């Protein structure tokens, strides 16, 4: 793959990647785009390590999830207060508010459960591919999915969604 082919490839994959990271970051567009950018640059610089055993998109999402985990780790260590973080999201950016129901629904899940749900239902990945992306066994992914389904069903029933 040449540099131009790589750029063409990420042109098509950036949208699902950014959507997934947006869901993981609960609608924080700045954080999600920061992580997405870091992911794409990391993928470019470490393209030599792509062995083609999985699809390119799976490999890219795996890097993206890794970057997200690094980011979460950094944020925990960060001294930045919650109010500061809230202020950073501009008031005129209502992208987070549009999807409040989704973020509320997945709020009670752990990071890996959230990732499983977003990848399975929104990005249409199989449990095997999700296992590769999250670096865990297929059985674990299925158990995450089972728990997340139970949680989401409860939320949908509370909201009267059908």
């Amino acid at each position, binding site marked *: *793959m040449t540099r131009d082919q790589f750029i063409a490839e990420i042109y098509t994959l950036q949208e699902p990647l950014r959507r997934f990271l947006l869901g993981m970051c609960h609608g924080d567009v700045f954080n999600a785009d920061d992580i997405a950018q870091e992911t794409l640059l990391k993928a470019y610089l470490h*393209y030599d390590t792509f062995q083609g055993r999985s699809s390119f998109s799976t490999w890219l999402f795996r890097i993206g999830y890794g970057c997200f985990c690094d980011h979460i780790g950094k944020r925990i260590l960060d001294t930045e207060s919650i109010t500061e973080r809230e202020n950073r999201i501009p008031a005129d950016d209502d992208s987070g508010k549009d999807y409040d129901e989704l973020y509320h629904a997945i709020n009670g899940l752990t990071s890996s459960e959230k990732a499983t749900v977003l990848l399975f*239902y929104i990005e249409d990945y199989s449990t095997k591919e999700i296992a590769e992306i999250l670096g865990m066994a297929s059985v674990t992914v299925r158990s995450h999915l089972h728990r997340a389904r139970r949680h989401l069903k409860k939320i949908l029933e509370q909201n009267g969604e059908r």
Partner: protein
Amino acid sequence: MARDKDIKQFMLRHRPEVKNSGPFMKDVVRQINAMPIPAAMNPERQKEDCIRLVLEVSRRDLRTVRLAVCVIVVVAILSAITISIIPSDLIPSIPTAFFQFK
């Protein structure tokens, strides 16, 4: 009771919309262009690697052939010497006759 299909519909209905793909990709491409090309993406580098590999293999083969030729030559010389000595040892009348003739 909500079914799996309902969950999928709910998720798709509420999936976040990604905006500003153009400026985002423009920035990513600008940064990529400022970075060095990784070896796996550099066709010139790949070509050089292939040439180096072919030269290495041909050099190794040449070394093997040279060694084989040397062994064959040595064996041939030794065989020639042995063949020239054996008849005189096996048929003693030849040197005797030779000396008588002299």
